[in-house]
């Protein structure tokens, strides 16, 4: 966020308003602004920012780099894999950028991964189906669960 220093007149206006927002006008454009304390801005910030703004990355668990690289390789290859109808519903395994194979079951691929001695943090097995979200992306889950809904007695 750009930082601009207050002028003396603005500081005096803020002090006079005792913490309330102050109207500001740009004399050149007549555009109006509101000057408010940082604490007040933080309270309404979520309403002003566009929906879907990225969350701070530290809130998420970090995918091991080898798995992430393999997920990215699978995601890049998925359109081509989907072009072949016989692949639909099958599974594909990636070790980094290398394709380990395509098989009818995931078990076959995991056996092959283990046979090659690939580390558990270095591969990904994905299903060859049209998908609208990359394997590493955060999945939004509906927060309300039936189990949490209590039936309340009617107001007396």
């Amino acid at each position, binding site marked *: 966020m750009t930082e601009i220093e207050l002028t003396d007149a603005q500081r005096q206006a803020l002090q006079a308003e005792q913490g309330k927002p102050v109207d500001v006008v740009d004399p050149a454009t007549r555009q109006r602004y509101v000057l408010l304390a940082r604490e007040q801005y933080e309270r309404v910030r979520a309403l002003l920012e566009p929906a879907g703004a990225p969350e701070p990355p530290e809130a998420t668990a970090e995918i091991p780099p080898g798995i992430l690289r393999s997920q990215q390789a699978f995601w890049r290859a998925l359109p081509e894999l989907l072009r072949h109808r016989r692949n639909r519903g099958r599974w594909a395994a990636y070790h980094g950028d290398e394709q380990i194979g395509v098989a009818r079951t995931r078990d076959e691929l995991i056996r092959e991964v283990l046979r090659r001695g690939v580390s558990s943090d270095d591969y990904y097995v994905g*299903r060859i189906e049209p998908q609208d979200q990359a394997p590493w992306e955060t999945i939004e889950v509906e927060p309300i669960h039936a189990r949490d809904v209590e039936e309340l007695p009617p107001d007396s």
Partner: protein
Amino acid sequence: MKILDRLPYSTKSTPPIVVRGRSVPVKPHQIIVWVSVGVADLPEWDPRMPAFPAILDTGNTFTFSISQSQLIRWAGMRPALLRLLGNIRQGGTFYPRHEADVWLHPNAPGRRDRRADRKPLRLPLERGIAVYSDTASPPPHLPLLGLQALTENALHLTIDGQRRLVWLRTPDWRTRLIRWLS
């Protein structure tokens, strides 16, 4: 193949389920299934894997969600043993997605108990399972088996609201016939 066969649910409160000595309440309209959780590279079903109840929640948009303490105490697994695939975000909070398979146990026909003489069905879950921290608010009292797990595995779910019974089966000639008739 039938997995759930006339599994009953109730519109009233039913007796709680006891899991590892702890009594877990069951609310009206909750469909209770029995599941196990295992690592994805397990070659076949291991009968030593513990089974525990979960709610079949078609309103849940993910595959399977479980709290960390349930995963440790009920499934006998530590999250650190399961590969990390990404995250989910629920109510503004992030929870990790770990690679794991859910094994869904058949029920004794017409009863809520699991049928011990049949192998469970493995549900491979490409996006993994979500593991809630134990400080999640509100903490889940039972794990949730969401609609995505059924969809990913092409399962056929029938709920008879009149008789309060549930069927779940893998695709076969019956499901094709039902689809053709509907």
